[in-house]
């Protein structure tokens, strides 16, 4: 079920997806397919996307994430992006990628807490 470089596991009724350092376009597209498949199968309360290993977040990756997040929401879940690196956060901001519609968390741990006890202030407006 899992792609060679994307890791997808079910943890505490959420999906934990871990992205590799520099995923190519095929891997990024696979992310979306795998998440949708897993959402269907397990009906988890949310998706935690662990990007702590990711060094580059370009517009294609960002677009795919927000699309996936939208689909997860439509299927009754929430998406939390976890572990974004400072250099990636700064670059994404300056490039104009704001990832509206997703939650963010410093760590996977925090992300899982968030999905278990959601806090209204954390959402990006």
């Amino acid at each position, binding site marked *: 079920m899992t792609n060679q470089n994307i890791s997808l596991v079910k943890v505490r009724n959420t999906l934990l997806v871990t992205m590799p350092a*520099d995923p*190519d*376009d*095929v891997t990024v597209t696979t992310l979306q397919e795998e998440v949708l498949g897993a959402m269907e199968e397990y009906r988890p309360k949310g998706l935690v996307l662990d990007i702590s290993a990711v*060094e*580059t*977040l*370009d*517009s*294609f990756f960002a*677009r795919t994430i927000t699309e996936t997040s939208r689909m997860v929401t439509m299927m009754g879940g929430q998406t939390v992006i976890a572990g974004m*690196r*400072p*250099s*990636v956060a*700064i*670059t*994404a901001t*300056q*490039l*104009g*990628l704001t990832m509206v519609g997703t939650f963010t968390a410093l760590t996977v741990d925090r992300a899982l807490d968030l999905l278990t006890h959601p806090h209204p202030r954390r959402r990006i407006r």
Partner: protein
Amino acid sequence: MSDLARGNIPIKSENDIVAARRVVRDLATQLCFGVTDVTRVITAASELARNVFLYVGAGVMWWSILDQCGEVGLELTFEDHGAGIPDVEQAMTPGYSTSRGLGLGLPGVKRLMDEMEIHTEVGKGTTVRVRKWLRK
């Protein structure tokens, strides 16, 4: 005063976008750019390479290391022989997007780099040149 090194890679497939990122990462790291600047340059290259592949299908990325009066920099040039950009000013306006959704992302790329030049001619092609200088 002189170019220290230069090279190029063709952009013909999605894999070439990744290849472009790798080459730029190696160059930026070699030149001792800080972590965030390395990320900026790689991301800018990814965006511009993707534009070439997405809108034209084929093109080339030239890179060269610059040394001007002790200032070290990295220059990337993305060249294609596509349809050209009909209205560059509009494309450079933040917030503008084509029907695809995110447009060419040029304002964002400009923000990431120190210098950017665009030469385009409808029906002939486009050349986008960007530079980042090493901060002291």
